[in-house]
């Protein structure tokens, strides 16, 4: 599966558009990690635990998007966008969406 946030894939030709595919996941923060983050919040600096957690969640959202793309018979998703929103206190939604397409090598 070829992924790109451009509207095209260089060197390839889009032969078929299969429409919007999307993947999302809502994750709550881990209580123990929350506590550590609370302490870290006094001193400032990077919250590694959250960085990893959000990255994992984003990957999961992307995996779901790819699953949708595979289901519709695409071999690439172009013009991918990400968005994050906090749904309730302490939980975040990670969302990925793009256009599922069928690519063919240019001549």
């Amino acid at each position, binding site marked *: 599966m070829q992924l*790109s946030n451009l509207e095209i894939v260089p*060197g390839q030709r889009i032969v078929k558009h299969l429409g919007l595919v999307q993947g999302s996941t809502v994750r709550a923060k881990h209580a123990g990690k929350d506590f550590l983050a609370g302490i870290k919040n006094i001193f*400032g600096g990077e919250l590694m635990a959250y960085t990893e957690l959000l990255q994992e969640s984003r990957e999961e959202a992307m995996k779901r998007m790819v699953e949708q793309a595979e289901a519709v018979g695409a071999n690439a998703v172009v013009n991918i966008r990400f968005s994050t929103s906090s749904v309730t206190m302490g939980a975040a939604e990670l969302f990925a969406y793009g256009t599922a397409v069928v690519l063919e090598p240019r001549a």
Partner: protein
Amino acid sequence: MADLYIFLILLALGFTIGTTVEKRHFRSLIRREAEHADLLLIASKLPTPDLKISESHLVGGNAVISVDYFKRFVAGLRNLVGGRMNAYESLVDRARREALLRLKDEAKQLGADMVFNIKIETASISQSANKALGSIEVYAYGTAVKTARQ
């Protein structure tokens, strides 16, 4: 009374440690940015056709950075009178640059030399019920390409 002491201690700790951490982070950002200077970041949507692109990949990098107690308090006061929140400016700056550097790390691992269509996504992570900004997450993503430039 005990509350007041805890409050003052937190302020002092937040200030001393927070400032040190921030200074160190900025030094590290500047150093790593210099190391990665050969990888070009382009915000344009499409590469020009004259670039001979052999490969492209979606790449991204994220960072969650939290603000220290002292700055959060200063920002709270600032909230009363309005105006520029200096305390949070360095927070978002650090998070953005860190996320971009991680994007560059990933692009380099894939052997790319340019990243096109950079998008930056910022989200605040609320710590608790009160709406005081705890920390922010920045996610930077784009399409890394291998060109014939190399």
